[in-house]
């Protein structure tokens, strides 16, 4: 539990600044520092156990199904990193408190910083690689926020995005790599994985896993060629650079290499990939650092170089090299964090970071100069500082590694390291004083104390490595290698160590290099260099552009193309599904073709084709489609489907009215605008699908169902079970009344939608006014029409009642009845106008819909009273002398709901559309 608490503490701390910021920066800083310190204290609490080689673990089951568990472990390696993260974290918090300007959103900064701290701590404490991934990605995210902290600066935004893209990409590769690792082992728990060296290294998936994991580690630790993001991350405030980009986050990759060292290292693949990446990075970045003029850029490339050094050491795969690597992690964190802080101080004091504009600060800023000297010389690997010790160990390892190019490159890197360090120091602090805009001076202790503490460590560790750092290096290295290690760190190993001579050569070479610097600089400046940022930007821009173009071209807003794609897909896959299986030939006896239906179908087909061919003349096309509807209705009557005929006839009338209402506004002609090729494409798709549909229909009609259809039950139960002769109607109101329930709601919603949209249209200024020039005849309401419709309305209602009442036994029903009523009322609208008809409406159409839904619902709910499910029907025969007995069925009540809903919906929709035709009048609420 305590480890989980430790991991959680920084996150809890991240919550506090929002609450404490009102009390001022100091309080806010102290509060978060308290959390960091508490975590540190809890870590130190475990120190004695760790030093003797124990491992502290905590297990919390989080997602056992996946193997993602909140398992934490604290061993020597974790301890080393935890101390760096929390210790330097405390210093950074103090430094930042004084560093950031008063106008900056400091609370947010602290929150981000603590989020990062938590993520980083999480990485090193994770005992589950999936959990580690969680924290790993969190560091990418929180560093994105920190780099982009000065969000008003374009380079900050860009640097943040670059870091996120690069480390994010690596992180995703690492997810794959670590998951493969987990799959090889069968567990995602580090404790298990670390014991499975043989299984992992003999697995065919070892190499892919290795490469993917290394991608993650190298991007995070800015190894060549993924180093480019780090210098751009320097757009972050200096405390961030000091913390993330020197001491902690960039070391996460190294941590991972170290963490997995026992199971991944020792193979040729590991050796070659890791050492070459490290060595190249070390030498290459050192060279670049030599030619940079920005203080932070020099430090950034130096960081890259030192990370390369450590990577190189880890790649060697020997315990001694691992020891050196661990030790250098510690040393580098101390001097580099200090240097970043000092660079920040110089920046603050002089308002520049360009070393060509700096100089002579040793007098103006003696404290800074002193601290910088210590840290820089350590960076250069000058004895007796700690940097020297670890560099010696590195050179010693390099010297014993074949081929020769390795020690040579290592020495060269050391040489360059000395050179840029000296250049950094001398250009900034020595030489003449240039004209500063205002006189620079040492900062308040708040700013210089944190680097001073680190500098003290640099000196102390250099002076007494074994008592001060030996135990820590031992513990960490033991944890890394999985075997007890007792390092021997000393200033002097005797004259026969190659490292000594390599160091001397490096220092000497560096002095020569610095002497030749102007010449070298001219060569450098004249050499064309691939600018990583330019390449990155260009490729990202190209990728963005490609993605954008692709998306815009694909989703170009063309509905026709969307349709075409859909139709093609449906057709192709349908045909494929058919082609790829067998089918028995149909054997049903077919019905004979009578002449009259043949004429009818011919008429329908002709009308459909004509409507398609003549679709540009919209009114004509509508008329032709009307013919199709007419023949279809008649066909239903002919094909023993009288209910369908009734429905189709009435729906047709209302649809035509609706379309004409709309066509009143719309253009009457469709322009010629599609190219011939498009028409050809459309025609082929349409014809192909038509043929396929016809074939499918024919195939279905040719054969009986494989199983007896369930409708046999409906036919058998229609009368005894549902109390109606009309099996279609009993299905609609009873067997499948629930479908009908949904269907009337669809209709109701349609009406509400039309009403709502009309309302919103009435409230807006239209781009287009209806073109009324076409129909300018007088006499909007012919008297004969008015008079006749007065008779037709009651007659229609009578017919409606007739169809409603007999629906259960004969064709008809609530739906048709509702439509017939609606048609009667629509006629009033047509004959006498919207004003006239709407003024005579007694019941609001809305209410009819609502009432319809409620009547249908409560009819259904009524069966609850009998403990029966929704919509359970009941019917009874009433004997009331002298009347003949008649049937009362709950289905009729349900049908009444249908009736009301249909009537209300049709009328509401038409009324709304009619109101649209005269937007000048005030809205009349329904």
């Amino acid at each position: 539990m305590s480890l989980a608490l430790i991991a959680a503490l920084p996150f809890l701390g991240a919550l506090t600044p929002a609450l404490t910021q009102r009390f001022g920066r100091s309080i806010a800083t102290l509060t978060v520092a308290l959390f960091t310190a508490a975590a540190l204290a809890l870590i130190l609490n475990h120190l004695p156990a760790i030093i003797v080689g124990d491992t502290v673990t905590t297990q919390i089951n989080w997602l056992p199904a996946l193997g993602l568990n909140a398992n934490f472990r604290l061993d020597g390696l974790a301890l080393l990193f935890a101390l760096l993260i929390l210790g330097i974290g405390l210093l950074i918090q103090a430094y930042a408190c004084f560093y950031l300007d008063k106008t900056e959103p400091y609370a947010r900064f602290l929150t981000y910083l603590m989020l990062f701290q938590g993520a980083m701590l999480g990485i090193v404490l994770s005992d589950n690689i999936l959990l580690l991934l969680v924290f790993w990605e969190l560091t990418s995210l929180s560093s994105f926020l920190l780099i982009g902290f000065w969000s008003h600066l374009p380079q900050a935004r860009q640097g943040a995005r670059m870091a996120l893209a690069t480390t994010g990409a690596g992180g995703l590769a690492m997810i794959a790599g670590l998951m493969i690792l987990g799959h090889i082992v069968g567990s995602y728990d580090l404790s298990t994985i670390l014991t499975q060296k043989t299984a992992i290294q003999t697995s065919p998936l070892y190499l892919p896993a290795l490469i993917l994991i290394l991608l993650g580690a190298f991007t995070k630790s800015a190894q060549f060629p993924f180093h480019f993001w780090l210098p751009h991350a320097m757009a972050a405030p200096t405390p961030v650079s000091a913390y993330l980009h020197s001491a902690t986050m960039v070391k996460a990759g190294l941590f991972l290499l170290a963490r997995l060292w026992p199971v991944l290292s020792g193979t040729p693949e590991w050796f070659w990939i890791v050492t070459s990446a490290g060595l190249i990075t070390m030498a290459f970045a050192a060279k670049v650092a030599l030619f940079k003029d920005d203080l932070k850029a020099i430090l950034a490339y130096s960081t890259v170089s030192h990370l390369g050094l450590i990577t190189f050491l880890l790649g060697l795969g020997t315990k001694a090299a691992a020891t050196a690597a661990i030790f250098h992690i510690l040393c580098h964190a101390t001097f580099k964090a200090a240097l970043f802080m000092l660079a920040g101080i110089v920046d603050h004091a002089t308002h520049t970071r360009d070393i060509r504009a700096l100089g002579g600060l040793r007098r103006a800023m003696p404290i800074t100069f002193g601290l910088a000297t210590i840290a820089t010389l350590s960076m250069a690997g000058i004895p007796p500082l700690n940097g020297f010790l670890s560099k010696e160990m590195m050179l010693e390892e390099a010297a014993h590694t074949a081929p020769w190019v390795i020690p040579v490159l290592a020495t060269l890197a050391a040489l360059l390291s000395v050179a840029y360090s000296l250049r950094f120091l001398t250009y900034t602090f020595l030489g003449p004083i240039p004209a500063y805009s205002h006189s620079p001076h040492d900062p308040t202790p708040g700013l210089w104390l944190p680097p001073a503490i680190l500098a003290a460590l640099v000196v102390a560790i250099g002076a007494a490595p074994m008592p001060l750092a030996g135990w820590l290096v031992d513990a960490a290295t033991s944890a890394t290698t999985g075997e007890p290690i007792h390092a021997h760190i000393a200033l002097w190993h005797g004259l026969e160590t190659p490292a000594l001579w390599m160091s001397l050569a490096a220092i000497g070479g560096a002095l020569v290099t610095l002497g030749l610097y102007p010449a070298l600089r001219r060569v450098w400046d004249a050499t064309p260099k691939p600018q990583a940022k330019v390449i990155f930007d260009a490729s990202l821009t190209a990728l963005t552009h490609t993605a954008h173009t692709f998306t815009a071209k694909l989703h170009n807003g063309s509905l026709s193309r969307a349709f075409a794609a859909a139709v093609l897909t449906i057709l192709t896959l349908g045909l494929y599904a058919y082609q790829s299986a067998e089918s028995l030939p149909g054997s049903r006896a077919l019905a004979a073709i009578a002449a009259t239906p043949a004429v009818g179908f011919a008429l329908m087909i002709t009308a459909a084709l004509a409507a398609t061919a003549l679709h540009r003349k919209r009114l004509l096309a509508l008329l032709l489609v009307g013919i199709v509807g007419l023949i279809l209705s008649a066909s239903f009557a002919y094909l023993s489907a009288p209910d369908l005929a009734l429905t189709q006839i009435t729906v047709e009338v209302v649809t035509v009215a609706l379309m004409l209402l709309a066509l009143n506004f719309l253009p009457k002609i469709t322009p010629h605008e599609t190219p011939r090729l498009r028409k050809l494409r459309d025609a082929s798709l349409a014809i192909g699908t038509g043929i396929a549909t016809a074939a499918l229909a024919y195939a279905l009609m040719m054969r009986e169902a494989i199983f007896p259809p369930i409708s046999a039950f409906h036919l058998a139960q229609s009368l005894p079970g549902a109390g109606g002769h009309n099996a279609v109607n009993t299905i609609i109101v009873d067997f499948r009344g629930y479908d009908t329930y949904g269907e009337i709601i669809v209709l109701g919603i349609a009406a509400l939608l039309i009403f709502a949209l009309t309302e919103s249209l009435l409230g807006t200024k239209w781009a287009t006014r209806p073109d009324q020039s076409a129909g300018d005849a007088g006499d909007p309401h012919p008297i004969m029409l008015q008079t006749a419709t007065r008779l037709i309305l009651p007659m229609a209602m009578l017919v409606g009642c007739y169809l409603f009442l007999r629906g259960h036994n004969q064709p008809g029903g609530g739906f048709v009845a509702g439509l017939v009523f609606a048609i009667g009322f629509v006629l009033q609208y047509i004959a006498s106008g919207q004003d006239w008809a709407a003024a005579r409406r007694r019941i609001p159409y809305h209410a009819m819909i609502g009432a319809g839904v409620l009547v249908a619902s409560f009819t259904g709910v009524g069966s609850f009273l009998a403990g029966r499910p929704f919509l359970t029907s009941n019917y009874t025969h009433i004997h009331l002398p002298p009347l003949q007995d008649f049937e009362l069925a709950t289905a009729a009540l349900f049908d009444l709901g249908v009736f009301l809903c249909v009537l209300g919906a049709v009328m509401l929709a038409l009324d709304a559309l009619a109101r649209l035709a005269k937007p000048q009048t005030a809205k009349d609420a329904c």
Partner: protein
Amino acid sequence: MSQLLILPVILPAILAGAIILIARNTLNAQRAISILGTIALLALAITLIQAPTQSYFLGNWPAPFGIALVLDRLSALMLLLTATLALIVLIHTIRTGWDTKGRHFHALYLFQLMGLNGAFLTGDAFNLFVFFEVLLIASYGLMVHGGGEARIRAGVQYVAFNLLGSTLFLFALATIYSTTGTLNMADLAQKLPQIPANDTALIRVAAVLLMLVFAVKAALVPLQFWLPGTYANAPGPIAALFAVMTKVGAYALIRFGTLVFPTDLPATNTLLASLLYPAALATIAVGALGTFGTRSLPRQIAFAAIGSMGTLLLAVSAFTPQATAAALYYTLHSTLATAALFLIADLTRCRRDGMTAALYMAAAIAMAGMPPLSGFVGKLLILDALRGDAIAWAAILIASLLTMIGLARTGSDLFWKSPSTEAPAESKTAILLCLAALATLTIAAGPITSWLTLTAEALHAPTAYIAANHLGGTK
């Protein structure tokens, strides 16, 4: 048989009917009914999720002759997801006043919930069509709520495209009925294995057509064209609610793919899986490239939604219990994450302060599948379930990266580049609730996934589902 099963469908319908009948001109009453109704639905869903698999025989007609509702773990889960999302979105809508920008918002909203719940509960293929239509037409209404040129024009495309889908649905259902003589899904599950091996072509056609319908709803490439315009132009909260609409398609694909057309069915075999797999990959690609290459936030979220559907359906296409469980987890996650992003996008129209930025960050993290939120967990679950499939892994991971970069770019442009505008503080309650739900998904991932694992196992061995069909309807 518990009457509770029908309530998720008829309760919203009755409330909507009541709104139209008596409360259509009083906004406060509408809001009260709407909120209370949604809370009731949430309570119902919580009750039902603990219930065993059972059927509800409408009209008391026995299956397969009447229509049966079937409540199983999956449908209960979808009910819960819908109710949760609905409540969140409704709160946002009321607090931002979106419901005053047009008529009938609340009635349409309740009908929308009715349609969704009905689709999740039904055990009848044709009834599924009916409730698809209910939920679609309500969504049309909500989509154009408030009007405006761009929205209405996008609405036209949305409606037209879905009408094509609905027509296809009918073709498929007719083919199924014609060949098998039944519409009940459990009945189909029992009958299809008995189809003679030499006469499977027609049912295969039907299966493919049916799955294509669901693919339209799920925005599977190349049937995704309707989505970006619709989601980007819909009112913010409605776009958020629509996050669950694509899941209806996913739900139906899972339901039919495991119950009616499982991979061990001789007639269809792995036909559907093998079609779904490349389509899902293409969907991931289209979604990721769209998220990466688009600059307007709502559109970008729409593409991210497409991408997440691809990821989800990639998992579905494996048709293994483990992958299905992962897909279900991802369903919950991507619904809430998409919704959160849309709600935030709605907020950013007038407000881009630090708090909004933080909310955006959290939602974007979830959407991109970055830790610590559920997107990461979901992604890991799917990767784990698809182990050994390098293409799938690469697709998911690269898409995740592209989504992350795209959302980061938009976020930094939106919150860093353009100064935060001062506007009246709008409520963030709904967004916080949504993120809290995502956090819950993450923290409680253990119990949730073990529940989902059982759900997936039940889906792949649907004996309880089928058995529930034979237990009632005595009329």
